[in-house]
């Protein structure tokens, strides 16, 4: 079971990277959150019965962990942070050189609330409204309304950032 789980983590590591980058700004907290998400996925793994897609299930666990039960202020003396040599989470910053829009996107997303970040992440991942509704736990109509509001908010931020850049 452990081997299957590790393969699954590597196959979908992008999901966890994205959640960590969206919800934590500092490197050490990102690593802590990454570890916590992997641990929660491992705990939930035996009860995963393929009722939904693996990626949908992983988004649910990762977002629940990041938003609801990960406490950034908690001191975990027994947890030794993983060293950079062992493992590093690729930051959005490292791709800014390739895409200037990435910087704008990152700045805009950082202005959103925790819930809005979760919804926009799933939208950008091209999840259907039905899948987003299943992961978040709200109606499809509510998903549509929220996405429209978030789009307006992001576009306002992007336009004002662009204006400042000129």
């Amino acid at each position, binding site marked *: 079971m452990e081997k299957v789980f590790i393969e699954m983590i590597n196959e979908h590591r992008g999901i966890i990277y994205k959640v960590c980058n969206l919800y934590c700004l500092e490197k050490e907290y990102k690593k802590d959150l990454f570890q916590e998400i992997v641990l929660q996925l491992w705990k939930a793994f035996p009860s995963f019965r393929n009722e939904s897609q693996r990626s949908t299930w992983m988004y649910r666990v990762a977002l629940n962990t990041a938003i609801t039960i990960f406490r950034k202020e908690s001191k975990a003396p027994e947890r030794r942070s993983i060293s950079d040599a062992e493992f590093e989470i690729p930051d959005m910053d490292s791709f800014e050189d*390739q895409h200037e829009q990435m910087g704008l996107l990152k700045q805009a997303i950082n202005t959103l609330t925790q819930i809005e970040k979760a919804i926009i992440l799933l939208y950008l991942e091209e999840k259907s409204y039905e899948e987003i509704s299943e992961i978040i736990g709200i109606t499809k109509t509510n998903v549509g309304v929220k996405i429209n509001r978030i789009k307006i908010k992001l576009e306002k931020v992007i336009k004002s950032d662009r204006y400042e850049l000129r």
Partner: protein
Amino acid sequence: MNLDELKGAWAAYDDQLKSTGDIDDQVIAGMIRKRSISTVATIKKSYLYGIYFCCFYVLAFALLNIGDPFDYTRDFDQIPLNAMLGALILILVILLIARHAMKKLEVPGQSLLTYLENVIKQYRQTQKLLLWLVCTIMFSASVLFPLSFLSRKIAKSGLWWGLIDTFSLLIVIVIANVITHLLAKRKGVGERSWWSFKVIIKELEELKTMAAELKNG
């Protein structure tokens, strides 16, 4: 630039992530052997400490009842101690039930809103339990325990001096608690621990705000 253009940037970011190397199997295996630092794990640990605390004092009070080191001559003298024992046993049972109820939160595989609501429920329960525990201990130590010596002191010194003598202990305990609380507050002790109401209230408010945001259209 609109959001659809940003989708393109996101897709490129996704491609870049896919091109990163696999995480070492040993590193992942190491992660799943670590202890959780989640809220759920912290609350569970606090409940466990509470259970140990209650077990110790239940045993201590049971031994006091059996041994009778205070040489109580009348049966009703033991009522306050028995009341304290009863309250502690009740708290112990509640803590055991509450810890068992945490199982629902151990696996965050439900939808975000459902999980959020379950965690809020657990926070509220923890808040009530903590309040109940603190009030019980304060009341037991300040009122019930001194009361067990009241009849003897009245018999020895008369009604009023008996009352003053008995509750002088209460006054000392209250002053000691106030001083301890002020000193602890000054040093910031317990501000981030689960024994601080401030922490629980703050977390609860944040979670309730998020749940409200999800429910409102």
